């Protein structure tokens, strides 16, 4: 007889149960779907792959050590909280200064859709990464949580400990500013009007 849906036993509830019993493999399986979210946030904070991985590993170990007290309704939110805590340790001023005011997007028309194949080009990738690191830190954090990791805005706000409206502002600012930074690198625009053309 064919196996009966063994995948059922990989459900988050059961993995949580195994992890509660001290099964570190189960805990790793729980962490796995969120590695990208963890890594991208760590990367925009540290700006460097090795430091980013170190930060994620420290956060995951810390989460594991505190797993006995896990009682959250969302494992992802709970886990990302440890990364934010790690980030706060490395940045004495915290990671979320209010930096979302005073930005006006440039006026550009006929912005064409960028082919995703551009990311095959290491030079373009590096340019985009550098552009991301030029964003205010709060904006970077929301941008990668929302756009890199696909986490809903309300949850991004919860993870970062800010209001949802502030998270939305950060995201808007990040997307607009990154769009302009990309334009400055000559990527993806057909006609850029002079900078004073903002509305």
């Amino acid at each position, binding site marked *: *007889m*064919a196996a*009966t849906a*063994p995948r*059922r*036993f990989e*459900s988050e*509830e*059961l993995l*949580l149960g*195994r992890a*509660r*019993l*001290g*099964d*570190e493999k189960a*805990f*790793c399986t729980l*962490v796995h779907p969120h*590695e*990208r979210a963890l*890594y*991208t946030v760590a990367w925009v904070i540290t700006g460097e*792959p090795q430091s980013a*991985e170190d930060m994620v*590993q420290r956060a*995951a*170990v810390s989460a*594991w*050590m505190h*797993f*006995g*007290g896990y009682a959250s309704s969302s494992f992802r939110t709970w886990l990302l909280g440890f990364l934010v805590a790690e980030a706060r340790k490395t940045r004495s001023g915290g990671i979320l200064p209010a930096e979302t005011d005073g930005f006006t*997007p440039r*006026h550009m028309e*006929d*912005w*064409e*859709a*960028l082919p*995703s194949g551009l*990311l*095959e080009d290491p030079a373009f*990738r590096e340019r985009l990464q550098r552009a*991301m690191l030029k964003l205010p830190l709060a904006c970077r954090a929301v941008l990668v949580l*929302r*756009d*890199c990791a*696909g986490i*809903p*805005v309300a949850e991004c706000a919860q993870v970062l400990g800010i209001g949802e409206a502030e998270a*939305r502002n950060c*995201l*808007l600012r990040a*997307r*607009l500013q*990154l769009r302009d930074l*990309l334009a400055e690198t000559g990527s*993806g625009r057909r006609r850029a009007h002079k900078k004073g053309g903002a*509305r």
Partner: protein
Amino acid sequence: MTSHAKCAGLRSALSSYMDGILDAKGVARVESHVRECAHCRSLLTGMQNVARLAKDPRLLPLPGGFAGRLQANLRQCGAAPAQAHRSADVPMGITPDLVPVGSHLIYFWQTPAEFKSGVRFLHPGLGKDEHCIIFGHDEALSDVQNTLRSDGYDPEALKEQGKLTVLRRHAAAGTTLGEISQAVEKAMAAGATLIRFLGNLGLGRDPLPAGEDDVLELERRATSLLEHLPCIIVCMYDVRTVPGRLIFKGGLETHSLSVNSEGVQHNPFYVDGHVHAPRLVQ
């Protein structure tokens, strides 16, 4: 509202539009505006470009071997608070022995007193943060619950509290395992840290739902499931009614541990289910 003021007012809505968090009226307002306004259309397209590029895993690829290093780090960091439960084996109830989580034990019984002793497997878990499942044919389920009552437990209350599940054997192994998995998931979701599963094999009024080989299949696959579950299984075989072939192929070959009045011991007849499973069901 002037055109410029309208653009400024809609700017934050563009981002929310991308995130799908606008109501129908807001969506209509944005779509109508960007059709007419080249500037806002450009903002939206540009932001959509940014979101699409950011979503692409090639932008910030995860370092290779990330998961393996994480697991190694977790092992190195020592026991998490939760590990105390795992490293201390759990009481098995029938005897004073402790057994590891994941154990699958065979218990042969012949007399009512031996049956009553077998049901004691459930005692350490009842009313705690564990969940108990009893499984078998109608007569066995009734006898287990009566035994619990005589031991001072209230099966009906335990069922209502979500501490006890009674599963009737009525179908073939595949369906049965599905039902077991559902019961386990429900218990784990409710916060159970350990599942005690008491299976009963014996011939009651009704015949085996899918024959002897299906029982062997169920036993073999139950062992495989244990690798993935915080669970202990004790299978009680009524040697008065179970055929000799099932006692040998099921009772002896599919359980790594056995328990009797003298205690828990390794079962020398156990055959690794992964290696010999196909032979079992031929």
